[in-house]
Structure formats: structure tokens, C-alpha cells
């Protein structure tokens, strides 16, 4: 029966061409959307590599003040540390977690090189963000006097630069020595893929990098936030002080990822509903036009259920033709490494898209095929 259905559909391929194109287009849209969703879900399921609850980022702008900036920043650092509500403070570059700033650089080791997200942070950073180390240690203030700049990299950077070798003690880009390795570090939130990251020790005498990351004790409220802003503004007249809660910044980052996905999901949803309605209409029309054939098949031995199965089978064959063409296109993405995504993401998206397309066409065919099954053979033959 399957070969019969293939023959029937193949012989009517011109009449079905538009339907095949419609299913193909739906598959391609679904495949694109699902690749994006699978990519984000996979990222989301991987650990962030740090904690952000009760962490505030205090942004300091010296504005017109240009004198003794590093010393003033250090005084603020010490002041923050002295509050009993504060558990830990760290100075960091502007690309702190969930911020909208990026800073990256290319690093190399022997003949291998990679782009890393480049963080300039002090010795307290890992403590403030509760980052577990998987090897070595985080740098200390005393490390700054050594021949090489002490750096900590994440495991992804280690894999890119050293594959399976032990990275500890290795020199990269001539002047940086790896002294520690952390696991994941997804600075832009859970939806970000785990990219290579490098943490370099902050120079306290530098004018830049004066964002203070403050871990407050649980239960600390907005009163304290207001007090901090007031105190710091009083300490350094003319400076602006801005407090961001990392939990809020995280939401903003998530929205940047989720909003386009949700829009694409809504647009694709409408497209799929249209395709489903189109298929439903075409099947209804097809059954109305093929009443004679239905009567004939019943006369020749088909049961009502057999007729129903035939119509579902036909739409499955049509979908199979469309999906084969679609898969031919889709498979190019993992083969040509388009968008540098893992192959598994594309394969998963393909499988889910195929499943959804078969599901939609089956749903669309169910009602018309049941109607076809109820057609009385004698009546249908007579109408013809």
C-alpha cells in the first residue's frame, strides 16, 4: 500500500507542488527557529559559573574630577568593605557579569590561538561572585610583582589553547601566566554559550576599572542602597554613583535573548497555523473531489478505516517528499559549520521539526480523513 501511495502522489506531483513547497517552507522556518531554541536551551542547561544573588554593581563616574582617581577609588573600595551589611567587595572592569559592555582579545599559546572575553578584575572577584576553581588558585595582591601577569582562565579557554594539557604555569601571549582555572563563566547570562574567558589582575593604580561589585548579606534592603549612594556621593563630590542589582541586569540580558525568540515563535506560529489551515482546506477539497474514488475503493474492498488511513498516508507521503527536500537544505548547516553551532543542535532541531511537521499534517488530515471514511460507497459511486 505504501508504494501505491507513493506512486499516486508522485504521479500527481505537479498538482501537489505548491503543497510540497508550503510544507518545505514550514520545515525550513521551523528548523531555523528550533535551532535557535535548542541552542538557547542547551546554553541554559549549562551552569553559569558564578552566583549573582545579592550582588550589586556600583558604577562610579569621576566626571570632571581627574586628580588621584585610583586612590579615591581605593578609598571607596575600603569604605564599602567596612559596612557590616557587605560580605565582599571586588573591583572590576566595565564588562562585569550581565553588563552591556564587552571586551575581548586574542590570545595565543605556541601555534594555537583563540578569542577570549577579557575581564580585568581584582583578587576578590572569585570570592564576591562565588566562583569555584577547578585547578590552581585565584591571584593575590602579591602576584602583581612577578615577571608575568597572573591570569585565571576558564575551562573553555584552556581547551582551546591547551587541549588536554595542564594549563597551570603555561605562558600565553608572551606576558601572561595561567595560575588558575575556573569551570564555566557565562558573563552574559544563562542563554550565553560558554565562551573562552580570561581574568587578568587589576592594577589598582589605574584610572579605569572602578566598578565595585558588592555582595551584600541576605536581607539587606533598599535603605542600605540609599545610604551607600549618599555616603559615596558625599565622599567624592562631583562623582556619580549608580547601583545595579545583578538580578535585574540578568533579566535585561535574558530579555535581549528571549524577545527575538518569542517574536520568531509568534511569527512561526502564525505561519504554521496558516499552513495547517491551508492543508486542512486542501484535504477537505480533495476529499470532496475524490468521492467517486472513495466509493470505488470501498467497492473494491477498502474499509472505512482503510480509507481514513489512506488519506493520512497520502499526506504523510507528501510531507515526506517536502521533508526530504528540506533535509537536503538543512543538513548543509552542520556539514558546512554554518553559524559555528554544535552539530547536535542542528540534528536535534531537524528531528523535532520533522516530528512537528508530521504531527501537524496528521492533525490536519484526521478530520477530513474521518469524513472520507464515513462516505457511503453507493452514494459516492452514484454521484460520480
Amino acid at each position: 500500500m505504501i508504494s501505491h501511495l507513493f506512486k499516486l502522489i508522485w504521479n500527481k506531483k505537479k498538482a501537489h507542488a505548491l503543497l510540497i513547497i508550503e510544507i518545505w517552507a514550514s520545515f525550513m522556518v521551523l528548523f531555523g527557529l528550533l535551532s535557535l531554541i535548542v541552542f538557547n536551551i542547551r546554553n541554559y542547561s549549562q551552569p553559569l559559573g558564578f552566583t549573582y544573588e545579592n550582588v550589586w554593581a556600583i558604577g562610579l563616574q569621576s566626571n570632571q574630577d581627574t586628580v588621584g582617581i585610583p586612590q579615591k577609588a581605593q578609598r571607596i573600595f575600603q569604605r564599602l568593605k567596612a559596612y557590616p551589611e557587605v560580605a565582599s567587595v571586588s573591583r572590576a572592569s566595565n564588562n562585569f557579569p550581565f553588563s552591556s559592555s564587552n571586551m575581548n582579545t586574542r590570545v595565543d599559546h605556541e601555534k594555537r590561538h583563540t578569542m577570549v572575553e577579557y575581564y580585568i578584575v581584582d583578587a576578590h572577584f572569585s570570592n564576591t561572585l562565588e566562583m569555584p576553581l577547578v585547578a590552581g588558585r585565584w591571584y593575590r595582591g602579591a602576584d602583581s610583582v612577578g615577571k608575568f601577569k597572573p591570569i585565571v582562565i576558564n575551562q573553555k579557554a584552556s581547551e582551546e589553547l591547551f587541549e588536554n594539557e595542564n594549563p597551570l604555569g603555561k605562558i600565553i601571549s608572551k606576558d601572561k601566566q595561567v595560575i588558575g582555572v575556573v569551570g564555566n563563566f557565562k558573563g552574559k547570562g544563562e542563554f550565553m554559550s560558554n565562551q573562552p574567558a580570561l581574568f587578568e589582575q587589576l592594577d589598582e593604580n589605574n584610572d579605569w576599572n572602578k566598578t565595585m561589585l558588592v555582595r551584600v548579606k541576605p536581607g539587606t534592603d533598599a535603605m542600605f542602597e540609599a545610604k551607600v549612594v549618599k555616603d559615596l556621593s558625599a565622599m567624592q563630590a562631583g562623582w556619580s554613583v549608580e547601583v545595579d542589582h545583578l538580578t535585574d541586569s540578568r533579566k535585561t540580558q535574558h530579555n535581549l535573548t528571549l524577545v527575538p525568540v518569542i517574536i520568531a515563535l509568534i511569527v512561526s506560529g502564525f505561519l504554521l497555523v496558516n499552513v495547517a489551515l491551508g492543508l486542512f482546506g486542501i484535504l477537505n477539497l480533495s476529499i470532496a473531489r475524490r468521492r467517486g474514488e472513495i466509493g470505488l475503493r470501498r467497492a473494491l474492498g477498502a474499509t472505512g478505516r482503510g480509507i481514513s488511513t489512506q488519506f493520512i498516508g497520502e499526506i504523510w507521503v507528501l510531507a515526506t517528499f517536502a521533508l526530504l527536500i528540506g533535509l537536503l537544505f538543512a543538513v548543509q548547516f552542520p556539514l558546512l559549520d554554518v553559524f559555528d553551532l554544535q552539530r547536535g543542535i542542528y540534528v536535534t532541531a531537524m528531528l523535532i521539526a520533522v516530528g512537528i511537521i508530521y504531527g501537524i499534517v496528521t492533525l490536519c488530515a484526521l478530520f477530513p480523513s474521518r469524513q472520507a471514511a464515513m462516505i457511503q460507497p453507493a452514494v459516492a459511486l452514484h454521484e460520480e
Partner: protein
Amino acid sequence: MITLKNIEKVYRTTRIETLALTNINLSIAPGEFISIMGPSGCGKSTLLNLMGLLDEPSAGQVQIGGEVVTQYRDRELARLRNRKIGFIFQSFHLINDLSVIDNVEIPLLYRKGDAVGASRREMAREALEKVGLSNRMKHFPGQLSGGQKQRVAIARAIVGRPDIILADEPTGNLDSAMGNEIMNILQQLNAGGATIVMVTHDETMAKQTHRLIRLFDGALVGDSVLARTDD
């Protein structure tokens, strides 16, 4: 082979009832070639549909090969239609998107077990040879004449080697030469042992059968054994 007892068929809508057949008692023996005649709307096709298990009587009993089929379910009726009955229609009812041999194969598709793959192909080829169309197997219905289409329909009716062939005005859409050709094939099939029931408007064709049933206003008004012209 076919027995109809006290058959009544009423078509009901919400507003009207139409009595299509009333008090039909008829017995058809194996190997008979019967023609049914009567004016349009007298119930000929309805009677044929009841014999072919395409419709259910409002009252009465239908027996096919000794089996009382009145209470049969869809699956059992479909099996009986597939195994025991072959249909030939006035308008051929060929599927235009399938080749001649694929059309002929259709009844075998609904037969589980004994007709698969190559053997199905072989049976269809044999049926087409019987009607003299083995050279048109790959053609499509649109490429055939009316007579050839009806021969394909006959091949389809006999491919499953049924005991009974029901023909609803098989020569109705054909000229007399083509009609005679079809009639010859039916007579050959009957000579081979098939029981044939044919609805026709053509007295000449009817006279070539063994027995003539006449219907009028849904009632059986005549049942006569004919002197066979081919003897």
C-alpha cells in the same frame, strides 16, 4: 450464490421517504448470467448495490455464498466485497493518476497475505491479458478509448478472481461495436464460471444473458429464463 429475501429499501430524509425497493425475493445460482432491466429510477442500481454490499437494506436479508451478511460489520463486508465480488461501472471509475496496471492492482492492495508484490503484479498482468490489454499496461486512463477503459475496469473486476461480477450498465457509455466487445468478454468470463449480474437498458444485450429480471417502481415484475442467442 446470491439470495435476497423480502428486501425493502427506503431512502429517508428529514422531510420525505422514498421507497426504492419493495418485497424483492430473488435467488441467483452460481454460474448464472442475469440481466436486470427497467425504466430509470425503478431501483436497478439500488438492487445491484445491495447485492454488492455497497448499501444496506431497510428490511429483509441478503445472503452471499450462503452467508447472511445483513448484520455484518464494515470490515467483514469489505472482505466479502474484496474476495467474492467484482464491480464494473458504466463510467469505468478508473483512477486517472494511476497507470492501467496500477488501477487493476487496486483490489489486491486490500487483500492481506496472499497477494503481495510481484505476485500482485503478475495477477494484474494476467487479468489484462484476458481482456486483451497487455500492451497498454503502462498507459494512463486518459490515453485510452472508452472501450479500452471498460476492459481495464473488467480486468480490475476479475483480478481477484471473484465468484460474482456485478456490472452496472457496462456498455452504457460505449458504441454498439465496443458494447459487443465488452459483452463478449463478459460471456467468456461467465463461461469460465463467474456469476454475472448486469444492469442494462439495452434489450439486445439483455437477450444475450441467461435470465432477465424486470423491475418497475421498486418491485420485481418479471423474472424470465431466456433462450441463449450464443447457443
